């Protein structure tokens, strides 16, 4: 870290402090928390792209899987649903696993030819029908139980912090499947495959009501921190706030945001420390060697496909962890909010602008770009209203322009990405 990098980080914090003074400290801390989450996600993408040159555009899917993990680990179980439909769902899932195992064994053990193909098709198709036959009645029962309140299986009722790890594991599992299929082929196949898996993960979250309540959203996910309502009744807290001369309601919400911030900083610090260690180890050097020249690395006896799989899983797991953290910050899972433009491409822009291959760069990109993502809309609106101030107020064209200011975000982010790629492809904090 030299003075230049430190001053770049300082600039971001000055921006946040300006927001704190001119808008409110609540807004500033809200921004800071999401900046921290963005930094973790961009560390994840940086592991894939910066270390190994893997082009994966399914970040939104892994983030969403993290969100599902938060629900499945921390929500209280719905007893009645488990009693009536739990067994059905579990046997269906076991049947699905057995089918896949049999199919893989057939593939491995039989000689290639028509017999193997026909057998595999028979196994897979009959397995699918058994799976659906077992699953459909069970889910129908589960979704009928109090559909307005629950209508799903619920989770395990464990502390929500625990789900952050589970989110990483979920994402790692999905990444393993995708990586197995598409790594080792031409580089853009991974991009297409991850784009696809992300769409499917989100489709599952939206439609499988028995698992995630679908578009009805899961609300009230337990928090790892205090609740505002409790703080506002707490004598000691009120006394402290009065002593500081602040308003109780505002202070309670600041306190909650601040505690989230501390937890996020701890996670970010751990992941950043591990990433730095990994990048500067023999493993990290091998990864960069593979990235820079695959042929030479494999001639030196490195198993390129296996290393790629490893690094792809690690990066996705980090995105999954961030996804679980974000859902526990929001306290709810809203499947419609998982937009690829917001969660995949924005994170990519963060990594490229910050400096791919450099962990500090990715963190800086996360902070800076999230800040811009939020602030571009008011700035765009302000710019357009200045540009159109000469036009009469009842002109439909002017109204249209002002209404469309929200889309300035996409244009700005695309322009930032293209300009960085073209003129400063190494980013703000380049790789050493």
């Amino acid at each position, binding site marked *: 870290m030299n003075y230049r990098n430190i001053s770049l980080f300082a600039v971001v914090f000055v921006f946040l402090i300006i927001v704190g003074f001119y808008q409110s400290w609540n807004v500033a801390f809200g921004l800071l928390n999401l900046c921290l989450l963005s930094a973790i996600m961009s560390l994840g993408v940086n592991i894939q792209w910066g270390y190994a040159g893997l082009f994966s555009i399914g970040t939104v899917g892994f983030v969403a899987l993290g969100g599902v993990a938060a629900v499945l680990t921390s929500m209280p179980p719905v007893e009645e649903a488990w009693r009536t439909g739990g067994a059905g769902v579990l046997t269906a899932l076991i049947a699905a696993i057995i089918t896949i195992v049999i199919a893989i064994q057939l593939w491995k053990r039989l000689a290639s030819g028509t017999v193997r193909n026909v057998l595999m098709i028979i196994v897979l198709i009959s397995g699918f029908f058994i799976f659906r036959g077992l699953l459909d009645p069970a889910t129908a029962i589960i979704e009928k139980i109090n559909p307005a309140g629950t209508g799903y299986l619920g989770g395990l009722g464990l502390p929500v912090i625990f789900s952050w790890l589970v989110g990483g594991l979920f994402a790692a599992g999905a990444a393993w499947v995708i990586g197995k299929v598409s790594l080792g*082929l031409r580089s853009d196949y991974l*991009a297409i495959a991850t784009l*696809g*898996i992300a769409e499917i993960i989100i489709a599952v979250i939206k439609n499988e009501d028995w698992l995630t309540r679908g578009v009805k959203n899961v609300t009230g996910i337990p928090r790892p921190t205090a609740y505002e309502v409790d703080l506002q009744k707490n004598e000691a807290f009120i006394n402290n706030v009065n002593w500081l001369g602040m308003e109780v309601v505002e202070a309670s919400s600041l306190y909650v945001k601040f505690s989230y911030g501390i937890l996020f900083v701890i996670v970010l610090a751990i992941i950043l420390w591990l990433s730095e260690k990994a990048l500067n180890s023999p493993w990290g050097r091998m990864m960069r060697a593979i990235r820079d020249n695959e042929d030479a690395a494999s001639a030196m006896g490195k198993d390129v496909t296996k290393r790629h799989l490893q690094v792809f899983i690690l990066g996705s797991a980090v995105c999954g962890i961030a996804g679980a953290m974000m859902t526990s910050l929001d306290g709810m899972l809203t499947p419609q909010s998982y937009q690829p433009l917001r969660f995949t491409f924005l994170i990519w822009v963060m990594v490229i602008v910050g400096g791919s291959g450099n962990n500090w760069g990715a963190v800086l990109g996360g902070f800076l770009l999230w800040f811009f993502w939020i602030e571009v809309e008011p700035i765009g609106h302000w710019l357009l209203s200045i540009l159109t101030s000469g036009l009469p107020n009842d002109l439909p064209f002017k109204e249209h322009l002002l209404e469309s200011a929200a889309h300035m975000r996409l244009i700005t982010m695309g322009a930032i990405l293209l300009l960085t790629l*073209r003129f400063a492809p190494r980013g703000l904090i380049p790789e050493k």
Partner: protein
Amino acid sequence: MDALHALIVLANFVIVPAIAYGSQLALGALGITLIVGVLRFSNFAHGETMAFGTMVVILVTWWFQSIGLSIHPLPTALIALPFGILGCIAIVLLTDKFVYKFYRKTKSSPVVLVMASLGVTFIMNGVIRFVIGPGDQRFADGQRFIMKAREFKEMTGLKEGLAIKVTQSITLVTAIIIVAALFWFLNRTRTGKSMRAFSDNEDLALLSGINPERVVTITWIIVAILATVAGTLYGLDKTFKPFTYFQLLLPMFAAAVVGGLGNPVGAIVGGFVIAFSEILITYAYKKVFTYLLPSDFAPNTLIQLLSTDYKFAVSFAILVLVLLFRPTGLFKGQST
């Protein structure tokens, strides 16, 4: 008789829509595959290119409608199509000049070009939402059906109807014309042959005096034509919504990969493979089986393999199967 009824139900709800959808996908996949063949990268902005061309068509259509210009019973969009194509050609040539050309000159790796295409996706998406908004736009006018279900029933005296929409038949006819013209161009003209030579072996093509920039420009023009036509046909048949066009990227890529990236014939076959599988797997067969089975065995569920929300899963599954078992696609394409 019941078997005939079952067949008509199937034709009405599966075969006719799948042929139309397949033609749209095939045109889209052709664009993707041509870019892979000549420019050697996967263009993730292709969905947006389609949406942009369609947007221009829609705007011109609205203008024509407002001045009362129409070609009833055909949709007005057909006469607006050339304007959309011109707009789309302009935008792709501009992006090529300002974005892709630099990476081509510096011989950057394909992945950098793919990433630049993501930036283009962003900007185009923003521009489209800025101009026409993120919502649904309907612009189909003229007659809706060539044959209504009721007319078919009266004509044949059968219990089931077969409806054919005007947009479906326009899709098929236009697609056939465009594809025939494309193959004539690629196989018969000098420029088309130089394009294929460039796609097969860049160095040899350069040695024999083919001008690479000219080949690239012509490829972009063809891609813009294909994309605008595909997008307009899709928008006429269903509806225009920017995000849907972005989502079309997956089935279109799946179609191109299934057929073999870089192989035009493969892209067309791939488009129909994807369209038919998507619709066959997400269709509810209850009515078909009610006709086919004796009344005692009549099904009481929908008999739907997957709900329509999972149609992306179908193209994805096909994509994965091809990647696992035949990475070069059904027809030999590029795999490395």
